[in-house]
């Protein structure tokens, strides 16, 4: 701390890495060693990494079954150390040690996760091709009658993918944060929250039963709240944190009720048992199984809260008040996809209920459209990305709703890559622009931020479904899955196509407003603009490579057959969704259309994406004056979109004003005049006061007489007897030792007298 406060005025606004500052403080005569401090020195960082990796390797060799627990608990360990010794670590080397400790735990988790997934793949596959392991901590967590919850994890084809995404993207974002948060004095707290979040997210995806998943679910919600409100002295940030927390609670009520009902129906909450119990239902019992729809819808309400779907989507855009790496990790790549993960995980359950599937698909489509349309006009760079995330999450639910669970999860994975990339890129831009988030004040950053520009371009192309990047493949897969189910499928397909066009448009609008044209910011900002430090650029580069390559894992069959590229991803996750896919024909009865149609649809989606990109280029690169004219000529629509369909205002009016205040007044009146009843003074009534009057006037007074004259009478009588007797005995006990001795003497003489009568 001493070193920090002493050099701060001297180094002023220098943008260098934190460790570079530290030597500046040693000359001030406080007896500090010339090094950057024990925990900040690179050797300690290296040693920590070697120790962590060594311990992980030993664990992997000796006790492979405990490794999933190690993956889970390492970030918790990091959090514990930072939370308990954070102050001590911060005093050393300006907290660089804390940053690298946090990165080290997550990186080690990632390494162990890779090893574990490799090991699981080596397992002999069962009949279904599912390879899984259920490490068990050796004790029962809850045992209450028939309700039993084990402390076990589930590592299978699906959770492997999720764990890899969470730890992989998570560690990149940890590294990025080292650079991004280098100016923040509260870095240690930030990294401890980030580690805690990673722990809870891993618990969510690894938990072997719904209650464990729920613990992770609530935990990530908590960390989301803490990190959104990380700069809690800013009122908007604190409010956004509260909003996220409260909106999530609404969804969580659904999740809890769904869990209770699921336990009633299936007698278990273990994920594996749940799916096998659901699939073993016979066809007759199945269609009479109304409650299963209720279970699915209640669980989906929880997913809506966490994954920001209509009507609970309002918290996600506000969540952008948090630090940008947090937006990337929690509000784009991992936490918000928890709902999709859960729905996909319980796909076998959902595919038993056509109603639930329809609801999921409709809500997903509606959210995709809503998010995409709002993103068209937003000017805050992070708000555009936030609404894009809302829209893409809607796309994932759309996929689940039409039974394309594998495609949904594939989208989840690739989205984690390119959306994290885009958020981190926008963070890099904001960092360079000294906190500016309004794209109207940017422009022309291409030459000043070369790497940020390149990587963000990759992200934009990936999300805009240009082949052969990730976006193209999953969009083709999802849209085809929607189209082929018949019924309302083609409508969903049409909506999805429109969303794809809008996505391409708003992403390239963002790109052009930020990187093309001329710089529109202030002199001060222009002077400051600089490429971000290495710790920030490296994760961008890795994520860009990931965004390019990830798509090749999931090439749809129709193209893969031609190009001889297998759909690795679908083949890998298929066993998890097999139960769900088997039940689907009962839900979607239409015969699949011909392959030529699939090709045509794919071409349509490419064309429309190209159209969106070209339109954005025309409007924001070539004729920058046109958008303003369009906005003024379609002013009502523009305002509607800019103000996000007034959803927040409606909620404010209906729920906060209407329900909370109006309802409060009504309830007050009911309370005052019906429940209280009577005026409590003279007039008897039926309410509380009336009964109170009756009790006071009749019951209490009668009881008073009985008490005073009968009960007290007996008590006083007893007391009087003893009181009077006491006058006799009191005189004996006067406290004078001589009198006591005299009584003793008299009694002794008396006894001797009696004794001698017998003896003599």
């Amino acid at each position, binding site marked *: 701390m001493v070193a920090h406060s002493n050099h701060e005025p001297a180094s002023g606004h220098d943008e260098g890495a934190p460790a570079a500052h530290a030597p500046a403080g040693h000359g001030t005569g406080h007896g500090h060693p010339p090094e950057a401090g024990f925990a900040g020195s690179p050797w300690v960082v290296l040693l920590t990494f070697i120790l962590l990796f060594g311990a992980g390797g030993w664990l992997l060799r000796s006790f492979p079954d405990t490794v999933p627990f190690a993956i889970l608990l390492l970030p918790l360990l990091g959090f514990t150390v930072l939370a308990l010794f954070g102050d001590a670590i911060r005093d050393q080397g300006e907290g660089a040690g804390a940053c690298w400790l946090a990165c080290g735990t997550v990186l080690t988790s990632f390494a162990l996760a890779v090893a574990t997934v490799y090991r699981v793949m080596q397992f002999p596959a069962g009949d279904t091709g599912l390879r899984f392991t259920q490490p068990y901590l050796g004790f029962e967590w809850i045992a209450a009658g028939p309700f039993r919850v084990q402390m076990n994890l589930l590592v299978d084809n699906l959770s492997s993918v999720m764990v890899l995404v969470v730890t992989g993207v998570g560690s990149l974002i940890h590294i990025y944060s080292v650079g991004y948060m280098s100016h923040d004095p509260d870095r240690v707290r930030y990294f401890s929250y980030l580690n805690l979040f990673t722990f809870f997210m891993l618990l969510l995806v690894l938990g072997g039963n719904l209650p464990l998943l729920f613990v992770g679910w609530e935990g990530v919600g908590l960390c989301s709240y803490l990190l959104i409100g990380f700069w809690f002295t800013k009122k908007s940030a604190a409010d956004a944190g509260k909003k996220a927390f409260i909106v999530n609670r609404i969804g969580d009520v659904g999740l809890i009720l769904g869990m209770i009902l699921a336990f009633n129906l299936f007698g278990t909450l273990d994920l594996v048992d749940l799916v096998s119990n659901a699939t073993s239902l016979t066809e007759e019992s199945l269609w009479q199984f109304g409650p299963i729809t209720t279970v699915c819808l209640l669980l989906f309400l929880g997913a809506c809260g966490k994954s920001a779907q209509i009507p609970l989507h309002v918290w996600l855009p506000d969540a952008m008040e948090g630090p940008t790496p947090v937006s990337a990790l929690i509000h784009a790549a991992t936490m918000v996809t928890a709902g999709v993960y859960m729905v996909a995980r319980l796909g076998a359950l959902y595919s038993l209920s056509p109603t639930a599937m329809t609801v999921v698909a409709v809500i997903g489509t509606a959210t995709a459209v809503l998010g995409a349309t709002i993103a068209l006009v937003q000017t805050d760079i992070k708000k555009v990305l936030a609404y894009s995330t809302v829209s893409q999450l809607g796309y994932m639910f759309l996929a689940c709703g039409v039974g394309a669970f594998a495609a949904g999860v594939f989208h989840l994975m690739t989205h984690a890559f390119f959306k994290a990339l885009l958020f981190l890129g926008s963070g890099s831009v904001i960092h360079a622009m000294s906190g500016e988030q309004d794209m109207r004040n940017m422009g022309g950053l291409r030459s000043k931020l070369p790497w940020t520009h390149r990587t963000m371009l990759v992200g934009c192309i990936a999300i805009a479904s240009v082949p052969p990047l990730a976006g193209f493949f999953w969009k083709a897969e999802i849209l085809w899955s929607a189209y082929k189910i018949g019924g309302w499928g083609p409508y969903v397909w049409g909506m999805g196509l429109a969303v794809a066009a809008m996505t391409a448009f708003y992403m390239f609008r963002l790109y052009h407003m930020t990187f093309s044209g001329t710089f529109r910011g202030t002199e001060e900002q222009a002077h400051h603009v600089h490429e971000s430090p290495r710790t920030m650029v490296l994760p961008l580069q890795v994520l860009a490579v990931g965004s390019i390559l990830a798509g090749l894992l999931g090439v749809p069959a129709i193209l893969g057959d031609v190009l001889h590229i297998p759909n690795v991803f679908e083949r890998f996750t298929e066993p998890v969704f097999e139960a769900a896919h088997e039940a689907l024909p009962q839900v979607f009865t239409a015969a699949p259309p011909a392959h030529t149609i699939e090709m045509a649809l794919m071409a349509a989606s490419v064309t429309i994406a190209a159209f969106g990109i070209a339109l954005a280029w025309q409007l924001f690169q070539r004729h920058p004056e046109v958008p303003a004219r369009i906005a003024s000529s379609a002013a009502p629509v523009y305002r509607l979109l800019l103000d996000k369909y007034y959803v927040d205002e409606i909620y404010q009016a209906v729920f906060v004003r209407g329900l909370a205040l109006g309802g409060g007044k009504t309830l007050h009146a009911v309370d005052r005049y019906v429940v209280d009843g009577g005026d409590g003074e003279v007039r008897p009534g039926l309410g509380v006061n009336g009964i109170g009057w009756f009790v006071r006037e009749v019951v209490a007074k009668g009881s008073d007489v009985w008490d005073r004259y009968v009960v007290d009478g007996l008590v006083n009588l007893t007391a009087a007897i003893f009181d009077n007797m006491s006058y006799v005995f009191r005189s004996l006990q006067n*406290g004078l030792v001589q009198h006591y001795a005299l009584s003793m003497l008299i009694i002794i003489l008396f006894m001797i007298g009696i004794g001698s009568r017998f003896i003599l």
Partner: protein
Amino acid sequence: MSPTLIQHALLLSLALFAIGVVGVFLRRNVITVFMCIELMLNAGNLAFIAFSRAWGNLEGQVLVFFVLTVAAAEAAVGLAIIISIHRHKDTLDVDAFNLMKW
């Protein structure tokens, strides 16, 4: 030892003891009461010695030493109590010491 002598010794012991008892009950000064207790103890001692002499063994005399020892200890404790009471009450009148009641 002649029967007369032991009779005399016992009568003296009885007289001393009676004086002690009367003193303990009637005197109002704590120090005097305390001295009367010592008197009673010494009356007991005299009786022991007389009997020891009469029976021709030493056990009575041994017992006297024990009594003397205990008396010394008792004197120490008793005087300490008296001092502490005096500090508390500023008087040595036994009638002032009436704390031993409910």
